[in-house]
């Protein structure tokens, strides 16, 4: 699903070249729940933005759901983003001028979906996160946990192949955080592929697999033994870098 | 005061800074020129005509048909007018000041008019000076016998001329005009200047228009106008003007029906009418300036507020490092001043350029430096004022902003 090979991302200023990601190789299979951890500045946010096609990379390859993302133009990348990826951000990033319904509506609009179909999907996804009663409310009228659930609903409404979450519980108190994590786990059980960046080891532990990034490279790979055996059987190279 | 961070900030917001600078430049260019034009037009419309305007009015008289002796009927009219209670003087003429229409004649020092000065000519008689309230500063008034009758297309030789001081100086710069002879119209012999009056404006008032270069050069010529079309100028005793403006025409018509009274106008009404466009333009330009300044001010408020919001964290950091509130305000005010100064320099160039274009297209005057300076002061001041509110809001950003990570 999310297949990066020897990827690198270089930031160039007038004076210095910084490698945000270096020789980055990772393969997230469909249906996996991966937690990405690492200290500040390690590049885990960069990894996520590149994975989400929000940024371009300098070298290497990135295959998303079988599509080579090199050389895609802005329109193609936007379309891919829209159809295949759902984002959940730490600061929710709901559009404050729009109510819940219209916020969730946004990605469907860019897909050119007709009104009836959009309405159906939005209702369905709101029910799934349990916020149907708040459909006409504005983000400012809701708690952090509710806003994040709306964000998750927005991420799901397009039936994406991949969910990318960046510190999804970072701005929430323990109680709300627990609710969001439970939702994520539920989604995973339902077959969703989730990649979650977090600095909280307890949260990371709830994922299926953990990936640790330091200085732009994957340092550690803690794999679910069952998956490793399946992969080996399929002939994949699971040796540590 | 460290200017380096200000310049760095401006470089990052190049377009926004340019927007403010351009607005200031254009507003300044328009403001300077507008203020100058306003001053010009208001000064223009305040010029005295040299006559006692509050007590004077004119009756436009048109004789109908050819019946009646032209001289006799005019003399009868004058006798009637002069006899009316409340009338302090009356005469018949071709033109009067503040109307924009009249007659011009060249006074020459030689018959070929190689050395000559143009002047507005007002026909009149021995009562003209008294009626209009003109002050003789040298010489004497006309005598009744010196006044000749002037019919259509006649060219009589005037017995003498009364000229304004300005005209006398033009013709005789050495100052000794009284008694000297000048060549009037196409006459082959000279006419003496028998009197000099202090001031009498030409009828034309347009800025840069006919007569504007010699607006003080007028003369009174002793002709009694007996053409079909003429004006009676009447001086009312104080307080009697409005009543006389109604009764005098009626009495004239009663005296002789073969006429049309084509209008009665007081000199004050004439002044209002002739300067209406000038005053109107002044008002329009004043409104334009006020609105322009408001628009620019609001634009500055908007953009500066954005910059303050954009740099909240930076401000917090500065405060955390020890900057006082006043220092933050000074920072933004200085930034605004630099942008405004850049706009001001461009605006001065634009303003001068616009003025030069107007001078060549409309023959207006060159812009005096004081208006540029005044404009710069107003615009810079306004900019500082507009930036104050956002700057004060910036100053209230708490140092804790430095530590916020989102």
């Amino acid at each position, binding site marked *: 699903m999310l297949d990066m090979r020897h990827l690198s991302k270089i930031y160039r200023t007038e004076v210095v070249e910084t490698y945000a990601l270096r020789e980055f190789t990772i393969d997230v299979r469909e249906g996996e729940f991966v937690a990405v951890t690492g200290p500040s500045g390690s590049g885990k946010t960069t990894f996520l933005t590149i994975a989400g096609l929000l940024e371009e990379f300098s070298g290497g390859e990135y295959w998303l759901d079988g599509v080579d993302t090199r050389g895609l133009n802005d329109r193609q990348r*936007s379309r891919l983003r829209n159809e295949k990826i759902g984002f959940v951000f730490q600061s929710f990033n709901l559009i404050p001028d729009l109510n819940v319904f219209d916020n969730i509506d946004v*990605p469907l609009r860019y897909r050119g979906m007709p009104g009836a179909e959009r309405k159906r999907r939005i209702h369905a996804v709101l029910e799934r996160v349990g916020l149907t009663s708040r459909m006409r409310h504005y983000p400012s009228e809701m708690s952090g946990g509710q806003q994040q659930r709306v964000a998750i609903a927005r991420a799901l409404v397009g039936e994406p192949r991949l969910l990318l979450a960046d510190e999804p519980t970072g701005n929430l108190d323990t109680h709300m955080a627990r609710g969001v994590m439970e939702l994520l786990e539920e989604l995973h059980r339902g077959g969703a592929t989730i990649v979650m960046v977090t600095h909280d080891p307890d949260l990371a532990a709830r994922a299926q697999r953990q990936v640790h990034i330091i200085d732009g490279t994957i340092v550690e790979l803690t794999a679910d033994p069952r998956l490793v055996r399946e992969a080996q059987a399929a002939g994949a190279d699971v040796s540590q870098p | 005061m460290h200017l380096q961070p200000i310049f760095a900030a401006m470089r990052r917001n190049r377009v926004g800074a340019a927007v403010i600078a351009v607005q200031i430049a254009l507003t300044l260019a328009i403001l300077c020129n507008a203020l100058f034009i306003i001053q010009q037009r208001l000064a223009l419309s305040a010029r005295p005509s040299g006559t006692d305007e509050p007590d004077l009015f004119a009756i436009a008289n048109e004789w109908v048909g050819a019946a009646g002796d032209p001289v006799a009927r005019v003399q009868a009219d004058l006798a009637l007018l002069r006899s009316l209670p409340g009338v302090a003087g009356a005469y018949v003429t071709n033109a009067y000041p503040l109307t924009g229409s009249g007659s011009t004649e060249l006074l020459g020092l030689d018959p070929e008019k190689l050395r000559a000065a143009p002047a507005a000519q007002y026909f009149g008689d021995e009562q003209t000076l008294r009626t209009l309230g003109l002050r003789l500063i040298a010489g004497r008034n006309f005598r009744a016998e010196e006044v000749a009758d002037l019919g259509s297309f006649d060219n009589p030789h005037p017995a003498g001329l009364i000229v304004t001081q300005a005209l006398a100086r033009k013709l005789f710069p050495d100052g000794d005009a009284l008694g000297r002879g000048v060549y009037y119209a196409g006459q082959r012999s000279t006419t003496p200047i028998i009197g000099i009056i202090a001031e009498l404006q030409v009828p034309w008032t347009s800025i840069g228009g006919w007569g504007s270069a010699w607006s003080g050069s007028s003369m009174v010529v002793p002709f009694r106008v007996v053409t079909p079309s003429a004006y009676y100028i009447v001086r009312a005793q104080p307080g009697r003007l409005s009543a006389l403006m109604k009764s005098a025409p009626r009495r004239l018509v009663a005296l002789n029906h073969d006429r049309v009274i084509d209008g009665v106008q007081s000199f004050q009404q004439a002044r209002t009418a002739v300067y209406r466009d000038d005053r109107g*333009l002044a008002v329009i330009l004043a409104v334009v300036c006020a609105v322009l300044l408001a628009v620019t001010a609001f*634009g500055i408020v908007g953009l500066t507020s954005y910059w303050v919001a954009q740099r909240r964290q930076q401000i917090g950091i500065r405060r955390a490092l020890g900057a006082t509130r006043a220092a933050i305000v000074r920072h933004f005010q200085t930034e605004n001043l630099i942008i405004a100064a850049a706009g001001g320099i461009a605006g001065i160039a634009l303003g001068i350029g616009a003025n030069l274009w107007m001078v060549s297209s*409309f023959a207006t005057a060159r812009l005096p430096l004081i208006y540029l300076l005044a404009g710069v002061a107003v615009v810079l001041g306004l900019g500082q004022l507009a930036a104050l509110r956002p700057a004060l809001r910036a100053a209230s950003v708490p140092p804790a902003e430095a530590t916020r990570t989102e």
Partner: protein
Amino acid sequence: MFGYYLDLALRGLVRNPGLTLLMVASIGVGIGASMTTFAVFRAMDGDPIAYKAAELYVPQIQNLDPDVHTPNSSVHADGLSDALSYIDALALMRAHAAPRQTALYETRFAVTPSDPQLLPFQVGARAGYADLFAMFDVPFAYGGPWSAADDQAHAPVAVISRALNDKVFGGSDSVGKVLRLDGQDYRVVGVLRDWNPVPRYYDLQDAFGLEPDDVFVPFTRAIEQHKFTGESSNCSGPQRAPGWSGLLQSECVWLQFWVQLPSAADAARYRAFLRHYAADQQHSGRFHWAARTRLRDLRQWLSYEHVVSNEVRMLVVVGFGFLVVCLVNAMGLMLARVLFRSADTGVRRALGADRGAVFAQGLIEAAVIGAAGALLGVSLTALGLAGLRALLSREALVLAHMDLPEVGMAVLLAIAAAIAAGLYPTWRATRVQPAWQLRAR
């Protein structure tokens, strides 16, 4: 998507009333100021007989010694007067070098109503030849022009305006009736419909007068009756002899002259004729200089005579400058708005909006602001015109008005201006990197 963007634009603008108001006001005020001055300019710069403008010409002859510079309000910078002397006007009429031609001047008559109880009153009049009615396409309600024979015979005939006809004859068909002008009987041969071209191209000294000419009489008759013009006359040059005949023989210029020359060949021929005529005058000793001549068509004439007053020209420039300031201001405000909302733009980009979508949304938003600004602008234009009318004399801006074409133009201009102002800010919005926004915390 257009409907979606429209909906978003409206809602976004409503939720930020302060900024929206400033942007709309900026556009509206700019449009109002520039459309006001433009409406005035259009009224003054109008071409009332545009379809014929290329066929109507004014000849000029240099009848004043170019070496003698006496101040003369008729003479332009090129040394030519803008009126003709009687000698030249008569000579040109006699030569009949153009298919249609007329000498013309303004004068005034006293009308004596048949009812002796009523007072006589003055009317503005025009003396000309019969051709003038055909040349200027003057519309008749009753009757028609007098004939060339009437011109020859100095006939006491008159064509009167609708207004005068209403006043004296109660609006009836007064052809054949008698009108008493200056104590003499004139026979009415025609009554006009309302006709007052703006500007009055054939008499630019009264270019924007509200009073149309009430009486038209044959030129020859007016001259015979010693009717002089009420407008300006200039008598530089050799001193004229006294009396009416002295005036007619002098170099005083006070007459307008118009010819109709249907083709360019006709115009070329007339120019040659003028040159020969001037040369003849020089040979005969009337001029001791090489007299220049010019032939200008209507458009050239209007421009030569500076029909549009300097005040109005000034105001047009100010109006345009105003518009530029307002557009720049609007752009600045739109830029601030775009930058304020760059987080939202970043979110949309993340959710699948490509740069084109961001651009389209931004432009539609600008267009909505433009439309709202147009509403304000149109009202302000009406207000501005009313204000101008109150402040300036009627002659300065008669007939400056707003009707449907102007309103349409204002709306289009406002939307176009708003989109132009929004181009850069919207382009900036598309430059927003989705990642940058999300990482900037």
